[in-house]
């Protein structure tokens, strides 16, 4: 497979534009379902109505849905023969252009000096993960994850004595309820909750975030986890936190739970909270064609 670098860079800018300014259909569907459930005249209903209006306006004008254009997280799949370094450079160049075009806010600061380079450059930013696959195609999955919801994300290690959460799926259930309750409206509820069970402190979080690439309405391939996701969905809204924490009927749209092998000594449960503005889109390049999802 050959790539046309200029064309690919343009398409990557377009992927950033699309992701910053429009939500995937499954997320919009979740919000539309939620607005119907809230009481007429409630702050919760008004908030969701404004959210839907904002989504429409942002799409029409190609302006960011949320000013916090977040950590830019890329998962790239590439065929053999295309150098990873080329793809990384193209993503970085596209990021600079997208910032100039105000699709992204200058959103990275030096951890020590606090200096903002102004173009979203920096150490490990954007976050890019590249894998090789057997297909003769290139795929770029992009997610923008804002700081508000990242700050209420959490990690537990089981057993947790305080919550009486043991090293089993019931223990996992308990810590997830605790995390959503602690988050209140701060992660811009209603949220989508990615969970990683197992691994070490770092890999557990990576898996939790990867789960957020799943569609809101999909079904977990592992029956035990599918059951846990459904149980959480059914029960969590009893917390009454509601949109923005104003109180209301929908606090979480979906739970997406993944797992990975762990050491016998460790049992981590990582929770990645994603706000309602769940911005994720995909660019696929195949046979010289560029398609977006």
């Amino acid at each position, binding site marked *: 497979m050959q790539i046309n670098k200029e064309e690919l860079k343009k398409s990557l800018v377009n992927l950033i534009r699309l992701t910053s300014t429009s939500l995937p259909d499954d997320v919009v569907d979740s919000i539309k379902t939620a607005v119907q459930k809230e009481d007429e005249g409630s*702050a919760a209903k*008004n*908030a969701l109505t*404004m*959210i839907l*209006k*904002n989504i429409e*306006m*942002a799409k029409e*004008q190609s*302006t*960011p*849905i*949320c*000013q*916090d*254009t977040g950590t830019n997280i890329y998962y790239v799949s590439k065929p053999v023969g295309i150098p990873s370094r080329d793809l990384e450079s193209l993503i970085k160049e596209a990021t600079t252009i997208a910032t100039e075009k*105000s699709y*992204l*806010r*200058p*959103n990275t*600061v030096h951890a020590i000096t*606090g*200096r*903002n380079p*102004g173009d979203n450059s920096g150490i490990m930013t954007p976050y890019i993960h590249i894998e090789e696959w057997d297909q003769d195609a290139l795929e770029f999955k992009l997610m923008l994850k*804002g*700081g*508000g919801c990242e*700050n209420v994300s959490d990690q537990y290690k089981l057993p947790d004595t305080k*919550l*009486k*959460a043991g090293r089993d799926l019931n223990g996992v259930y*308990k810590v997830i*309820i*605790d995390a959503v*309750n602690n988050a*209140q*409206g*701060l992660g*811009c509820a209603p949220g989508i909750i990615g969970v990683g069970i197992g691994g070490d402190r770092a890999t557990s979080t990576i898996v939790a975030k990867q789960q957020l690439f799943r569609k809101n309405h999909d079904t977990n391939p592992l029956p035990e986890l599918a059951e846990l996701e459904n149980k959480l969905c059914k*029960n969590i809204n*009893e*917390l*009454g*936190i*509601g*949109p*923005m*924490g*104003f*109180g209301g009927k929908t606090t979480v749209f979906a739970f997406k739970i993944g797992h990975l092998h762990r050491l016998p000594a460790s049992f981590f449960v990582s929770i990645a909270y994603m*706000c*309602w*503005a769940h911005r994720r889109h995909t660019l696929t390049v195949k046979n010289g064609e560029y398609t977006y999802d």
Partner: protein
Amino acid sequence: MIKIQLPTTEEIIRKLKIGDEILISGVMVTARDAAHKFLIDKNPPEYKEILGNTFIYHCGPVVAKENGEWRFVAAGPTTSIREEPYEATVIKNFGVRGVIGKGGMGEKTLAGLKESGAVYLHAVGGIATMLAKCVTKVKNVYMLDELGVPEAFWQIEVKDFPVVVTMDSHGGSLHKEIRGKSDVQAARLING
């Protein structure tokens, strides 16, 4: 819907109660993490003029400059609790009448609102394009070079900017009420 025109007065603000939905018009100022730290560290007297009897907006906007004029492109609220160590003092020292943000604030700010006669106003997080449309004009920007775009003080004119009062000047906090109820439910779910 209650309409509030900025600048405002303590008398008007004292009348507001949690749950009130409000449309704000007039001139207000964005300030977030670095700006709050600056106000506390330097206590610059000229900022009394800029912040007095108006609202602070916890927001780091996406802006564009066209024909020499700044324009707000996306401007939703950021999480307010990070300013908890500073806010009560900023409100008192600079005569601020309200703080707009998201997620609510803590006990220190709640006490500060009561003492100084100010309110906490919750905007809907993430509706950045819609709220940017409510910004009709960028009047001034302060400390842009020193703090960068998201952190600078943007003095903006707004029209019908929608918010909900979630902390009032009488000790009321919607956040405390909701948390109290959800804690009970969470304990019930966790303990089966």
